[in-house]
Each structure stands twice: as structure tokens, then as C-alpha cells.
């Protein structure tokens, strides 16, 4: 394929604005300033980028980063095809060459010697040197780099280098305000207003326990999952237990206490 048209999203991924994120995104896009989406898991980062790509009608190439990822996974490598050696572009190179949004999800998981490849793309140069082929690709005008990052697990071992962080503009994602979260739950799961409100109360209980029994409060995603379970005939309490409480903790006291507080919601 000599373009990325296969990566354009055709159906609208619904996204409910929380705090003028799209405005910031569009401003960054216009200036091609690389963007960092920061926030806890399940707070809407991926959905947001899908939505914006759809809106701008640009291809979206997503890379889920992990510890074993090497620079070749991003840039590309020679493959042996029969007796020939053929260069295959990696996802990053595709985006750079043909234009498109390259979304590096959970970039902190990758090792720092891997993430350093993006440096030349994230300053004025906008070039990607490929040492294996000797090419220096100048980024397509529609190339745009977005990364996501979960600051909750900040670690001296796994963190972005200061020099990397400072190349990006940032949008913070957090759990949305109650009414917006309610809307999102209703939209995604097609549940009722009453159930959505009750689910918000459940998430408040979990957020009260953040750091005091739970690592994190329940994400919006979990609440949506619980709502969907209810649509398939699980009771409120059971859906909350299976969709929210049990995945978050193994501590029996915490599970029992949360179950009790969920039952108290009536």
C-alpha cells in the first residue's frame, strides 16, 4: 500500500467533550505540535484520538507499546522474502512517509532506547533517519505524533525522559464530572438515567478508597461494563461486583466492604 487510506476511520466514534479537549487538539494539529494524552486507564484517551482522527479525516495508526518493543518495531526491518531481502516500513515510518496520525499508546511501557527514535520527529526537523537503509525521510505534511501516558504508575524505572516530555503539548484526562460521566455511561451502554446515577455513586465509593484499599478508583470504562452486564440481566449488585469490584482487588475485606456499600445504595 502506498498510502494509509486503509487506516481512515469511517464510522464516528462517539466522544463526549469534557473540557475543550478538541479545541486543544485541533490547535496542536494545525501547528503539528506533538501531543501527549495523560490520564488514568479508562478515562477516554483512546476514544478521543479515534474521534479526532475521524473528525479530521486523517488515517490513524495505533501502536500499543510494551517492554519488548524495539526500535525496529516502530521504524521497520528487513524481511527475508524467498531469497530477497526486502525492507518493510514499520508503523511509525508509514505514518511519516504517507501522512497520518501515529498514536503510541502507553509509551512509558517501552524502553527508553526505543522511544528515542521519535526525537528527530518531534522537533523542527521532522525527519526520520533510517540507518538500515540509509534513508532520511522528511515527514509528510500530514504526519502528526500523539502519545498516551498514564501518570498513576510513575516510576523512576519507567518514566519518560525529561527531554522527551518537553517535546510535547499535553491534554489531561481525568474521570469526567458526574453529569458528563453519566452521559457517557448512558451513551455507551444504552442504560437508563437512574442506573447511570447509581453507578456514579458506586464509583464515588471506590474513589473514596483510592490509596486506602484500592490502587485507583473505578474507571468510566468499568462503569460502562457494569451497565452492559445489567442489560443482560445481571442484578445491579452482581454487575457491580463482577464488573467493578472483583477486577480491582483481591482483598476480601475490601470486597466485602464495597459490596456492603453497594447494597446500601438501595
Amino acid at each position: 500500500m502506498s498510502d494509509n487510506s486503509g487506516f481512515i476511520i469511517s464510522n464516528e466514534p462517539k466522544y463526549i467533550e469534557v473540557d475543550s479537549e478538541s479545541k486543544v487538539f485541533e490547535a496542536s494539529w494545525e501547528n503539528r505540535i506533538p501531543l501527549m494524552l495523560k490520564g488514568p486507564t479508562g478515562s477516554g484517551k483512546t476514544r478521543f484520538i479515534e474521534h479526532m482522527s475521524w473528525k479530521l479525516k486523517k488515517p490513524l495508526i495505533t501502536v500499543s507499546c510494551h517492554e519488548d518493543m524495539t526500535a525496529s518495531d516502530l521504524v521497520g526491518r528487513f524481511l527475508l522474502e524467498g531469497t530477497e531481502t526486502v525492507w518493510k516500513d514499520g508503523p511509525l515510518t508509514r505514518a511519516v512517509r504517507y501522512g497520518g496520525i501515529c498514536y503510541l499508546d502507553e509509551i512509558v511501557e517501552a524502553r527508553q532506547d526505543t522511544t528515542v527514535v521519535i526525537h528527530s520527529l518531534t522537533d523542527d526537523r521532522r525527519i526520520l533517519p533510517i540507518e538500515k537503509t540509509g534513508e532520511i525521510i522528511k515527514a509528510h505534511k500530514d504526519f502528526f505524533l500523539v502519545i498516551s501516558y498514564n501518570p498513576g504508575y510513575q516510576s523512576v524505572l519507567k518514566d519518560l525522559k525529561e527531554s522527551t516530555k518537553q517535546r510535547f503539548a499535553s491534554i489531561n484526562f481525568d474521570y469526567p464530572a458526574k453529569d458528563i460521566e453519566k452521559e457517557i455511561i448512558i451513551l455507551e451502554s444504552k442504560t437508563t438515567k437512574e442506573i447511570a446515577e447509581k453507578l456514579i455513586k458506586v464509583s464515588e465509593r471506590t474513589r473514596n478508597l483510592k490509596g486506602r484499599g484500592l490502587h485507583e478508583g473505578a474507571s468510566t470504562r468499568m462503569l460502562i461494563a457494569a451497565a452492559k452486564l445489567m442489560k443482560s440481566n445481571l442484578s445491579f449488585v452482581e454487575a457491580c461486583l463482577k464488573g467493578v469490584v472483583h477486577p480491582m482487588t483481591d482483598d476480601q475485606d475490601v470486597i466485602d466492604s464495597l459490596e456492603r456499600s453497594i447494597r446500601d445504595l438501595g
Partner: protein
Amino acid sequence: MHQGKIISIKSFSNLDNSVRIKAQKFLREKALYDWLEYLKRIEGSGYGKLVLKGFSKTSLDIIEKFGFLPIKIFYSTLSSVTIKKGQKTSYNFCNVCSEILEFYNSDKKFLTWLMLIEKMTNLAPEALEILLNEMSFLVEKMNVSQMEDWFLTCLRASSGDMEKRIKLLSLKDNEGLEWLGQTAGIKSFKEQENKIKIYTTAIWGMNVNIKEIPITNTKASIRRTAFSNNFVRVPSSYPGFTGQLGEEVFRAAIMHAAAHMKFTYKKFEIGKLKPIQVAIISIIEDARVELLSIKEFPGLKELWIPYHMATGESKNLNKAYGPLTSRTLFSRLSRSLVDENYVDGNGWITRAKDMFFKNKKRWNDQTLSRELGNILGNDIGQMRIQFNPKDYLPDPIYRDENSGIWNFDNENTKDFEELQTGIESYQVEKKETDDAEKNFENSDIIEPLAKIAPNKVSQSEEAEIISLQPEFDYKSGRENFNWCKIKKYNFNNKSNYYLNNYLYENSKIVSNIKNLIESSKISQPIKLKKQQDGEELDLDSCIESIVDIKRGSTPSNKIYKKTNRKGRDLLVSILVDISESTNDFIKDTNKKIFSSIIEATGILSEAINKSGDDFGLATFCSNKRDDVRYWKIKDFKDKLNKSHINKLESMKPGFSTRLGAAVRQAGDELVSQTNYRKLLLIISDGEPSDIDVDDSEYLVEDAKYAVKRLAYNGIDVFCVGVESESNKNLSRIFGNKNYVIIKSASELPKKLPLIYLTLSR
């Protein structure tokens, strides 16, 4: 008709008339004959008049309830008791027997009880009197086999120690009581404490400090919870509640107290109110906060309602509850206010309910309680209901005794001493817990004298020698054997919950650090690529090499990969210097270095504990060589709990720093552990000194020697120098790489855990 020698009741002239009449009423023919036979036997065996008296009365009680069958065993038990303990105890036994009859509905159960008494007489005669005296308490709480379990456990636990045995059996020992509680299946608070705390935090987002009061304390008010700010005192059990109600009563109690904490935003002033008005206003306020809670959490209604004494089951309530007393009236009022469906015929109560529910819009406002209370209080005056503040306890049982919502600090309180049943003892505790809100340094704990005579510390002076340690004399180059006495001092057990609260507030930091520690524990395998040798081929490198060959370049030979498993088997011992120098203020602040050290140690301990690593914690200071004070707060294998935190908090700075001795002591504890890596982490200002040593180099050199010894034994030593003037001594004692200076103690809570993290990697 029975043949043989005729015994007549008349021959027993000492019998009470009532007994005589009763016997003649209940006993016919054979039974009467047999009964008289028993009397004769008693007379004949010389047991004494009291025994005869006791038997004659009690046996009739037994016969009345169960018939004649149990009498044989009754007699046998009676004989044993008399023989072992004499007629007085025997008489007592008979009385107790009559009393406890009402607890048993089957003769079989009664017989087993008799047999237990016989057992008790045989196995622990010296305690029999005591047991008989508390028998109705015991019988009320448990069945016979449970009693037997408890009895035998006490015997086993005291094996031969008569004093201890008496103590246990007389319920004067906390340990004994705990077993009693456990045996009786009384739900104890301890089992539920953790869950209830988490639950309360989940519901309200607040931290509640809970203190348990043991069940021996029989003061009436201590059978209720009490609270002040965010401290709650609960009785350790609510006897009489079993099954579902027994399980939930603590949750009901704590949630009620929490409801006050949330919705009673200001204490009521006593002003000119009379006790009865205070009681009524409190009832209304109780209802108000409960209803507000129920609005947000409807399930709480189901939790609280079952405990109301006014069950609403009878139509004619006045009749159902007997004569109108304040107790019953107030119970009914309590129920009416929280349960719209409960209907009460009493005019005063109906009026209260109407007014309360008409003002639903004002439920957010606590002054409503006072207003309505005033009105109702005036009304009740005209009803001439007897109200005795001394006896008054709010109903239902899970509710608090009201001291938490009233401001008692003015002259009027004299009238309320009775209402405040038990408040005196609570006030003492309250003052201590109030202190926790003041700045740690300003609390009463550090006596004013400490400023004049810096070496005076108010810790308990009882001490036990736990070991003798040598000391190195650098001038002679020799270690002096058994030179220092390491002494173990008692902990001051009072807690202000200061440190507990601090850790709760900083739980996010603790959590983050714990995550860091966990993630550094890398026991997952790490793949190392591009290796010159290894178990597998690194395909990427292989391909690169082939490519290079095809292009005519030299291929790399690093085409293997291997997995490296980094294990982690680390044991750390934290040793904290609490000498007088930590009593200074941090520059430009009014916080003491000591506080920061304690807080930092608290945070680090919590984080390490949560990450699952084992660790030990001790503090030290010294007062010359034969008084090196060492407080072992936490053993390696213990899980960190509240008492450890309390012990840490109870430490007070003072005296000197004989570092070498403490290092040796901590080293001894570490050396016997089997972990691969052992680390002694010292928090000190790094200036060893003591008042019996003039030479400033002596103790520095000794510390250096001690540290070297530990290294020789495979123990790493690292020092966090807090507010050290210079690094000269630190680098001498610990080596260049094994110390770090924290310039200002206020940074310690943040930095200490990161230091641990770096060291533990």
C-alpha cells in the same frame, strides 16, 4: 403406698414454713418419701444446717420445674461441693441453682449444668466461689459445653499457677475475657474492625479512629458507643445480640457515629437546658442524621430499624409497653421519627412526628432538632414522666450516648454529670485524643522540664537487659568484652492516633512508594537481546546479520538472547536514632526534626509493609554504656499493624547516641536471618557521642568498627544523615558510598522511601 420406716416432715423442725407448705403441696406419697430420705441423709452426714436449708428449698424449685428426676444428680453435686468447700459455699450453690433454673428449659440441659459444676468443684475448688458468683452472667452468655470449654481453657492456660487461674476464672483478665467472648460466640469487634473501617471510608470518604472498650467495664454508658471529632469508642461486644443482629450491630454503631460526624456540624450548647430536654433533642438529632444518611444510602434503613425496641407490633402500645416511663416513651419516639410507617397512639409522640416530618425541608439544619426538642421538652414536663438521667441510655442500642454532640464545657455541666454516666473516664481519653489535633510538638507528652534538663525523658523507666555488647577502643586497638548493656524499655501505650492520621492523610504517597517498591522487585524474567551467547536465537539480530552478509558487510555475532531472572530476597532492618539532638527544630520552622523522622519512618514502614517485604524496626538512644536503650518496635516477620504505629508514635527524643552498640544489637538480630541480602538502614545525624565519653573520636571509631563487623557478616549498612553538620564522620563510619545527607529533615518523608528504593534494587 410405700412400706417401711415412716419419716415425717415434722421431724425436720428447722425447715422454713414456706418450704414445708410447698413440699406438702407438690410432693405426693413416694416423692415426698424420697425427698424426706434426702433430708435425712443430709442430716445424717453432718453437712450442716445451711446445707439442709439450701437443699430443701432448691430441690423443691427443681421438682416444680422438672420433676424429681434431677434430684439425684443435684444431691451428688451438692455433696461434692459441701465436702470440698463447706456448707456456706454449698448454700450459695443452692441459691445459684435456683436462680439459673429459669435459663434452662429442659431437664437434660440442667443436668449437664449440674455435672459441670461438679467438674468445676473437682478440678478447681479454689475458684468455685468466684464461679458461682458470676454464674448467672456466664449462663446468660453461653451454653454448658461452651462454659466447659472456657473453664478448661482457663485451667490449661494457668496450668498450676493458682493466682493466674483465679484471675482468669474471675473474668478479671483481658485474655480470659477474650476467650470467653470467643467461646460464647459473642461477635467481637476485632473481627470486623478492618472491614468496618474500609466500609466507612468507602461510604463517607472519612477516616474514623476506633477504640475498643473491653467488656469488663460495666459502667452503663460504656455499653454504648461514644464519639468525638473523628474518634469513636465502641464496646468490644454487644451481649445479647446473636445471629444477624449480632453481626451487624457494630456496623450500625459506627455508621451512626459517622452520620453525626457528617451531619452534626456543630456541637449543641447546653445553655439552660435540663437533662430531659437534652435527651429529647439528642433523639431528634439522631433521627435527623440517620434520615439524611438514608437519603443517600437507602440500605442504611434496613440496617438501623431492626434494633429499635419499639417494634410496632402491638396495636395498643400503651398497653404493650406497660406503664409509661421515659424509657419506653423515648424508644417509641425514636422509632416514630425514623419510620414513617410506624404509628403510635400517644399524643405527644404523634405531635413530635408531625412536626418533624412537616419540617422535612429543614432536615439539613441541625437547629431544627433543638427547636423541636425545646417544644417537646416543655410538653413532656406536663406529662409528669419520671426521668432519671443516671439510668438513661438511648435506644436503639447501637446509638451513641450523646456526649459527642454536646458542648459540656461550662458551669451547667454539674447537672449533667449523671447524664454523662461514664463521661469522666471518657473525658480523660477525650483529652488525649484531642491532643492529637494539636501540633505534635505542643502536646503534653514532652514535659516542660525537657527544655531545662534535656536528658529527662518521660518514658517508662522499667528496663530489662537484653544483651551485652563489646566496644572498640581505638587507642588500644582492642574490643572490650561485654562493655555495653543493651536495655529493653517498656512502651508507653497511650496513643494520640497522630501518626495513624498522618499516614491516612498521606496514603497516596504511601501507595505510590509501594508501587515503586513492587515494580522494582522484578522477579519477572528480563530478556536480554543481542547476546554473544544464550539459550535462544534472537531472530531480529539473526535477520540483521543475514542482511549484512547479503550486503557484504561483516555480520555481528551477537545473535542470541537469554532471559535473566532477577530475584529479590532482601531483608531490611530500620534503626532510628532518637537522641536529644533530634529534639531541635528544623531551621526556619516550628517543627521538630524528630517529628519528621517519625513521620518518614511511618511512611516507609507502611510502604514496605504493603509491598510485601519483611522488615524490622527499632529505635535507640543511650545514657552511658550500661544504659543503651533499644526499643524493638517491630520484628521481621510481623505484619505491620496499628500497635506498631502506636509504638513508633510513642517514642520521645532524649539522651545520647552510642551508635556502635545499637549497630551491633541490630546486627545480631540480622545475622541469624537467612535472607540473601541484608540491609541495616540507619536514620541518624551521624554524630556518635555519650556523656561518659570525652574523646570525640572514640565512639566514632567504635561505630566504624561495628559497621565493618557487620559488613564482614554479609550485612550492608547505610546511613541517612539527617541534618548532619558535615559528612566527615559519616564517610568515616559508613564509607563514601554508604550514606546520604538530607539537609533538611522536612524533606525526609519524601526522600527516605526513595533512598530505600535505590538501595533495595
